[in-house]
């Protein structure tokens, strides 16, 4: 089972609940903004404590309320690409990319800096500051930063939302390549049906 997720939490007076169990390597959480999609990613990442439920990825339990298991975020091995990239503004692109890589045991890394620069087409950016990047460039750096930490699962929060049409195509092609070449399971959040259909996998409707 790639994903076995069952989560519930109360946020801002609303009840957010989601449940899926699947062999699919890509799961898309689909629904209008405000449906709590980001909260689900936060719970999988360990940044938000669920009221109940469990999270298992490829057989590994990251959270289980009943068993009292709750790994801290730094031990979950999730590659989180938040909305609007959220690069560290006080570090250049290289230090952003290597932030997680440096904290990862060598045996658990599966991507080198050079490979990531190639894969994402950002070989010309390492010395730049995040503030000088375009939306598409920032998004690719955020992807690289997550992948370089050697994650077991990738969490993508509206990866195309802040981009124009041309950039969307570019990032989408990149996501397909990551899905096909890296074999890493992905949970993907979107409010855009076309984006969800194109990445394929299981679609979970929310809201």
């Amino acid at each position: 089972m790639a994903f076995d997720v069952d989560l519930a939490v109360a946020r801002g007076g609303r009840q957010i609940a989601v449940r899926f169990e699947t062999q699919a390597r890509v799961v898309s959480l689909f629904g209008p903004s405000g449906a709590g999609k980001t909260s689900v990613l936060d719970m999988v990442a360990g940044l938000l404590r669920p009221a109940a439920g469990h999270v298992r990825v490829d057989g590994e339990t990251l959270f289980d309320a009943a068993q009292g298991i709750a790994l801290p975020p730094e031990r979950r091995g999730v590659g989180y690409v938040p909305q609007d990239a959220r690069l560290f503004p006080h570090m250049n692109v290289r230090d952003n990319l290597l932030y997680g890589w440096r904290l990862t045991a060598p045996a658990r890394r599966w991507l080198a800096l050079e490979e990531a620069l190639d894969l994402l087409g950002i070989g010309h950016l390492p010395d730049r500051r995040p503030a000088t990047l375009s939306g598409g460039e920032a998004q690719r750096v955020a992807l690289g930063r997550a992948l370089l930490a050697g994650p077991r699962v990738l969490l993508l929060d509206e990866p195309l939302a802040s981009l124009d049409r041309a950039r969307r195509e570019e990032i989408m092609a990149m996501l397909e390549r990551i899905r096909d070449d890296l074999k890493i399971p992905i949970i993907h959040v979107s409010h855009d049906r076309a984006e969800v259909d194109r990445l394929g996998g299981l679609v979970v409707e929310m809201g």
Partner: protein
Amino acid sequence: MTGWLSPAEWAVVALSLKVSLLAIALTLPLAFALAWVLARTRLPGRVLLDALVHLPLVLPPVVTGWLLLLAFGRNGPVGGWLEATFGISVMFRWTGAALAAGIMALPLMVRAIRLSLEAVDRRLEGVARTLGARPWWVFTTITLPLCLPGVLAATVLGLARSLGEFGATITFVSNIPGETRTLPLAIYTALQVPGGEQAVTRLALVSVALSLAALLASEWLTRRQRGRGSDGL
């Protein structure tokens, strides 16, 4: 330049700087801890703590000085303990002047540090956690660097406030030449002396220059933090 102020007046300036620097060295860690509690925790007594921290800002300074006198006097709870344990007393000493100046600077510093902590994007800290960073490493590599300009601005502001401290100081440690007579106290003293206007003018000019420099530095540092992310520093 050295001829512009008399040696005694230079000594006053030097003493003022010494008192203020100790005051800020003592207050900064406390101010940061308080700002952290107020900005980041949901402690039940937070509102009361916030009010207590701000008390020196609104109390008549003479009352703050009197309260210090009660607490740190020979028979006071803190003063008695210091005397018994370490054999030290801050009464009528420059260290006491630093204590008074530090207390008076505390609210300003807590306010400024709290604002800079609240300006740090919590999502950045979350991302750092997912990348493998423990909380302490997140604090060191993300939170602290991002709020540092704000903390420095708070420090400079606190330094300026300490240099100007008068009421609590004169109440708590009196006005002793060479020991507790800082710039404001020296100006006050010179004002009491017939023909002291020239000395007053000189010392007042030094005060204005120091305060202005501190305010400009503080403003510059605050802008620097606000500018982060837009001009990339």
